[in-house]
């Protein structure tokens, strides 16, 4: 019998330390598969963020670097400009990309650096214990917004795909989710497209992925995936925000 689904060779044997039901593992598996399917594992350099997925440098079976919080796109620029033959991806959470690294992601996108950014949006700070993120929904409870995010005092969430789509630089922007098999398959397709664009030197690609954080949300994994589909995806609509390949570029 032949294995048709299983741990891809693009992941190391190290077991992941994420909480039960965390979406990071699903996205890791997809990237691990793509490293093999696209035959890029041996020329890829991955960038782990600061946050729960700081440990991604132990999980992806390729060269990895772990930079300061939010600086992934700058590190990626340094790597890609000096090693254009390598495939460079920056894996970032919402604290990393949408708070600390806001300047880095905007300018890497504006320069249209030929890199692939994977942005995990779980609307909360996981690693530090469930504090409010720039992506925390209005009214959503966190350990620094215990009565729910108060728009009057704590402002509005940042919709990263929409924000970056206001720039001319990005080549490809899509928002996906990993709550259902159907959405996971769409995420697989989006990430494959994003890496393919980098391989053909098209410029900046980012896939934002709505992902479950049951621990941070104070929910069971099953409740979390339902909340993602019913509430979070309403606020952060899924879809393609930029695809210059459709414009023949």
């Amino acid at each position: 019998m032949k294995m048709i689904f299983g741990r891809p060779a693009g992941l190391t044997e190290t077991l992941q330390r994420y909480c039960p039901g965390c979406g990071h593992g699903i996205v890791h598996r997809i990237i691990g598969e793509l490293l093999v399917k696209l035959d890029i594992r041996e020329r890829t350099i991955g960038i782990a963020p600061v946050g729960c997925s700081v440990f991604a440098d132990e999980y992806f079976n390729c060269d990895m670097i772990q930079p300061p919080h939010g600086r992934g796109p700058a590190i990626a620029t340094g790597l890609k400009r000096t090693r254009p033959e390598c495939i460079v991806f920056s894996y970032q959470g919402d604290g990393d990309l949408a708070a600390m690294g806001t300047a880095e992601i905007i300018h890497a996108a504006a320069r249209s650096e030929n890199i692939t950014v994977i942005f995990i949006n779980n609307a909360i700070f996981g690693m530090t214990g469930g504090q409010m993120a720039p992506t925390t929904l209005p009214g959503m409870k966190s350990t620094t917004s215990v009565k729910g995010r108060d728009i009057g005092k704590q402002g509005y969430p940042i919709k990263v795909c929409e924000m970056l789509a206001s720039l001319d630089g990005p080549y490809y922007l899509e928002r996906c989710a990993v709550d259902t098999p159907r959405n996971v398959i769409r995420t697989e397709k989006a990430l494959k497209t994003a890496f393919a664009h980098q391989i053909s030197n098209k410029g900046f690609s980012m896939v934002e992925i709505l992902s479950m954080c049951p621990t941070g949300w104070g929910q069971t994994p099953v409740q979390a995936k339902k909340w993602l589909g019913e509430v979070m995806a309403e606020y952060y609509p899924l879809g393609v925000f930029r695809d210059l390949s459709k414009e023949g570029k």
Partner: protein
Amino acid sequence: MAGKKLMYGNHAVVEGVIAAGCRFFAGYPITPQNEIPELMSIRMNEIGGVFVQTESEISAINMLFGAAAAGKRAMTSSSSPGISLMQEGISYIAGADMPVLVVNIVRGGPGLGNIAPAQSDYYQATRGGGHGDYFTITLAPHSAQDLYEFPKLAFELAEKYRNPALILADGLLGQMMEPVEFSFKPIDPKSLPEKEWALCGCKGRERRVVRSYDLKAGKLEVLNLRRAEKYAKIKSNEQRFKTKYCNDADLVIVAYGTCSRVADAAVKMARDKGFKVGLLRPITLWPFPMDVLGDMVKKVDNFLVVEMSNGQMIDDVKLATECRSRIYFHGRPGGGVPTPPEIYKRIEEVLGGAR
């Protein structure tokens, strides 16, 4: 390029960096070092290197982290406030044992300060500068010629010890023009050996990881102890300095960079008047030339530390001499530059009738 050319100090850095085989520059404009990114943008374009004008110094230093992790010589330049922004990145780079070159054309501080030359970033440069247990190799040029030659030395030391290196100059050195001799054969970056730790894709080898963290119990302590051994080795191998008229001196001036030039003129004035005065010019600020001062203290009764600050290097002079001699200070903070008569006056005050 061969022969001699009249150049700005800031332009000499650019040519020195390129001659050292560096093909990656990332930086953000700030006075008084703007001539560096300006010329770099032209020169990197000419020679097929990379020039990125970044959104911030934070981004610049992280681009260097990436380029260095890719195994390439990479540099940035800035001035004091920008260097402060880079400290986060420098700490991570030191924690990941990566070689990069950072040039600081120091200006007056704290805060936005002014754009006049200063030496008030000495502590920041020689005490690590950011968080955690680390040091950065710090070279102090005192001429456009040094600014041309030190990048090569800085890269060699940075790579030998896998540690970030700084060149600590000041606005005066960056802005003044001097003849520069292209004193070494430019290095072809392709001739530099591939680093055995560089990230370049794991084809035919184990994957590599560059990082500054280790959360396993006790592991970071081991790493930091190993780094302490490296620092001890740098301290014993790499102390660099120049001395002048120190053999018979009753007083030795300790000064680096611009101050060493002014002090040189003051020493001449003093010698003409019959005072036995010498000059010690530290070239490496970290590692500080402790050993030569430790020897000198046996013979020299007086040291005069001259700095364009309220006194920072003086602490290292006190540590090196264990305060066994009398140590005097003359400082000009906030963008002031001492004059030779000013220093001579201090010499006269100290040595009085001892000529």
